[in-house]
């Protein structure tokens, strides 16, 4: 290894860091450490002059390693890697110490924060000495795309890509396109027809020359990696067909929660307690009648059924409040004198035009009753013969503080929207992760909301979390744009910090194979050793920590590098036990 010549740059970040950390002291202390050729502070390291400073020093002082102590590497690691690369150093011979998010922003004692900053910078200095140059790699992209799910999100994505002249394979597990939207009567907040919205979409999808549609089809297994996936589909007409594609869009949607488990509501026991989806169907068919064929005089709509409740689902389904208000309009349009009760826990009208829609609905002669989701749910019971109604809802009305009884002939339960049971099969097939609520996890919740940690796999629509039509369509088109960009480029960069097997140390115990979340490891019988497909590998490091023999090298996260970092962090202020 050549003698390390390290340049250390401590950023003020204006006053963000400098206010809480004595940056001059940090730079001064580390300048005394072995291999530190130069150490400086600067007001904004990420600015053009800040980057120029590094580039000039690399050239002038023949630096071969660089440490920048500044903000989170999530924000500027790439910036500085590019800067050092510009000066002719491999971008991986750089290390960043986070002294803002993990230090100045969270501490209040300047002396202690300075001492911690020093520890973090020393750790980075120790680590960077063991960094090795890594080379960028890329793979070609097959221009076809697989779309899983033929709801509005899946169709929007498929059409966007097909309209750009690229091949799409659209796989839908049911016998028809349209998903949840096809089951709606009207949409909120403009009360336009869902059918008029979805039908042209379905027709364009069915007739598009660039879309191959597979109904009644499920994908069991996908092999390959970004740019080069493969899968087989069973078709009724042509038997098994092998498909090749470069990207995948997962748009498998969600399903309504089954409220049978909430005993308070008696769903399944009272025929006129129905779910919001059943009510949509009733509205679409144009008959708003009880099971006995009578016009209901009293209708209650209960919100948050299975939502925002730790016993069922803790999250908010986002669309039910507005759908409930939409129902008010539809009921009022056909039953001018019926009593309508909105039994809600919280009214969420966050979207464009939603608050106005809420205000408009309050003029429809309806009664809003509030219940406390945490305290007690309303309870539905059979009415007595002389009650002049079908059922009674007993509830603690929160705003008045009184226990009341509400006469009803029909109850609509605004059911939670939950993930499909079979999402785990999709997870297995395409290799993406689920959150605790069984919705797919995006790569970054803010900055990369439709990508996943698996390259070439995108998630759109409500399989990522409940959402309304405009959000679903926006995600679908965003993913299509991402894919079209990679197709236009013809190739994509793949992970550099991958794992590799040190063959002469691998004993063939195969512990690593099962733990790989990306199916990147296989066993080579001939060599009696594991092999890692470095295109599939995302560098998560799981195999490296699982390997009992120390035979897997996680590039850029080797034991030597990590131990050097730990030793560094302990070396300045830690006095030992």
């Amino acid at each position, binding site marked *: 290894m050549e003698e390390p010549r390290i340049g250390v740059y401590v950023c003020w970040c204006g006053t963000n860091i400098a206010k809480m950390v004595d940056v001059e002291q940090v730079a001064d202390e580390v300048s005394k450490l072995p291999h530190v050729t130069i150490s400086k502070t600067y007001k904004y390291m990420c600015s053009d002059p800040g980057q120029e400073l590094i580039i000039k020093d690399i050239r002038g002082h023949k630096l071969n390693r660089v440490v920048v102590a500044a903000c989170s590497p999530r924000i500027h690691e790439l910036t500085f890697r590019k800067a050092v690369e510009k000066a002719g150093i491999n971008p991986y011979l750089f290390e960043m110490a986070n002294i803002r998010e993990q230090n100045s922003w969270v501490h209040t004692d300047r002396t202690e924060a300075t001492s911690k900053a020093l520890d973090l910078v020393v750790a980075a200095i120790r680590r960077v000495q063991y960094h090795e140059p890594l080379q960028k790699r890329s793979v070609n992209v097959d221009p076809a795309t697989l779309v899983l799910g033929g709801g509005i999100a899946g169709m929007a994505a498929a059409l966007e890509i097909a309209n750009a002249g690229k091949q799409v394979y659209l796989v839908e597990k049911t016998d028809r396109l349209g998903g949840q939207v096809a089951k709606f009567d009207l949409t909120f907040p403009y009360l336009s027809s869902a059918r008029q919205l979805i039908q042209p979409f379905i027709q364009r999808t069915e007739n598009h020359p660039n879309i191959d549609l597979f109904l009644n089809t499920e994908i069991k297994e996908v092999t390959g990696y970004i740019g080069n996936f493969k899968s087989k589909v069973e078709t009724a007409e042509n038997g098994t067909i092998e498909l090749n594609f470069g990207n995948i869009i997962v748009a498998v949607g969600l399903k309504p929660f089954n409220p049978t488990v909430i005993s308070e509501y008696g769903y399944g026991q009272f025929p006129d307690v129905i779910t919001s989806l059943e009510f949509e169907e009733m509205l679409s068919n144009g008959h708003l009648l009880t099971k006995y064929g009578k016009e209901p005089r009293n209708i209650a709509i209960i919100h948050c059924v299975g939502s925002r409740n730790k016993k069922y689902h803790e999250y908010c389904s986002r669309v039910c409040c507005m759908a409930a208000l939409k129902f008010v309009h539809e009921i009022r349009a056909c039953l001018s004198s019926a009593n309508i009760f909105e039994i809600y826990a919280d009214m969420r009208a966050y979207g464009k035009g939603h608050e106005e829609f809420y205000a408009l609905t309050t003029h429809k002669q309806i009664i809003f009753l509030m219940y406390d989701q945490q305290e007690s749910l309303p309870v539905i019971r059979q009415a007595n013969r002389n009650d002049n109604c079908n059922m009674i809802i007993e509830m603690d009305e929160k705003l008045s503080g009184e226990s009341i009884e509400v006469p009803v002939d029909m109850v609509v339960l605004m059911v939670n929207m939950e993930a499909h049971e079979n999402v785990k099969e999709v997870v297995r097939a395409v290799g993406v992760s689920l959150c605790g609520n069984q919705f797919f996890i995006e790569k970054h919740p803010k900055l990369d909301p439709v990508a996943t940690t698996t390259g070439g796999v995108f998630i759109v629509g409500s399989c990522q979390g409940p959402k309304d039509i405009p959000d679903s369509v926006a995600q679908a088109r965003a993913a299509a744009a991402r894919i079209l960009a990679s197709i236009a480029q013809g190739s994509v960069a793949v992970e550099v910090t991958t794992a590799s097997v*040190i063959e*002469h*140390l*691998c*004993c*063939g*115990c*195969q*512990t690593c*194979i*099962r*733990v790989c979340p990306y199916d990147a490891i296989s*066993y080579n019988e001939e060599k*009696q050793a594991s092999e890692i497909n470095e295109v599939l590998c995302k560098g998560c490091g*799981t195999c490296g*920590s*699982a*390997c*009992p*023999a*120390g*035979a897997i*090298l996680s590039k850029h996260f080797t*034991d030597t590098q990590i*131990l050097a970092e730990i030793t560094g962090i302990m070396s300045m202020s830690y006095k030992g*036990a």
Partner: protein
Amino acid sequence: MSDSSIPNPKIKLAVYWGSACGGCCVSVLDTHEKLLDIVNAADLVFWPIAMDIKYKDVEAMADQSIDLTLFNGAVRNSENKHMAEVLRKKSKVLVAYGACAYMGGIPGLANFHSREEIFKRVYEESESTLNPDKVRPVEEFEVKEGVLKIPEFFNDVYTLNQVVDVDYFIPGCPPQSERLVEVFTAVITGIGLPPKGSVVGALEKTNCDECLRKKTDNKVIKRFYRPWEIEDDKETCFLEQGVICMGPATRGGCGVRCVTGHSPCRGCYGPPPNSTDPGAKMMSSIGTMIDADSPEEIDEIIETIVDPAGLFYRFSLPGSILGRKVL
């Protein structure tokens, strides 16, 4: 007359035990008839288990006068440390021989306790102890005839190279005698000796490489078993049967004797070259095999591992990053 016809002068060999069970010394005898070859090539100048040579005799030897010293046992007390220092000075080549000298070994498990805890247990609490006055050993005791001295019992157990500079390491509890012959031959001929600091007499790959049991990626564990709790099918990988076997984290070289005898590997040969802490490595590996659906189930499964620290660091505690229990 050419030089080659002059018989080489015999080399001087010493074998010493620190904190040890004696097994390493016996492993030297286990070379059987090869011992005669060793004796032909070497003069044994010091070997307490076999010969009556006093410490003062060794102290009187000239520095660097011993060609090869096999030091077995850990460094547990001041006597062990003193002899380690003396032998380092007197020897050209000092070898940490066996798991205790190399990594701390079984005596090293004492680092899960302090000296005080050990003394309290041994001199006060143990079921067979009758010591109402709570008498403890003292390092110096005056009697009529003079002052009696015993070595100081350290708080920590050390590996040999934590005390003195070591040239080579031979792992094993005890090392396989065949390996000793190979190493011995290399030392006297000077042929095939690796760089100073190397582990010799062992392989780079771990035991699974030589193990003949059937191995797959099906290492999915719902509960752990101790060897006597299941009927071993004698052909499937122990881990796949839920029995913890240190084989995948342990250097080969022993000839997978334990597993061949249908007993899981205990890890006496220590970690392979790139592994910095064998206990942590094996625990992190075992973690990936646990098949649980909830954090509670993970806890339940882990509960079935009896004495995990003692199990995963059985031979390696003082020499590992962990080192000891911080009290």
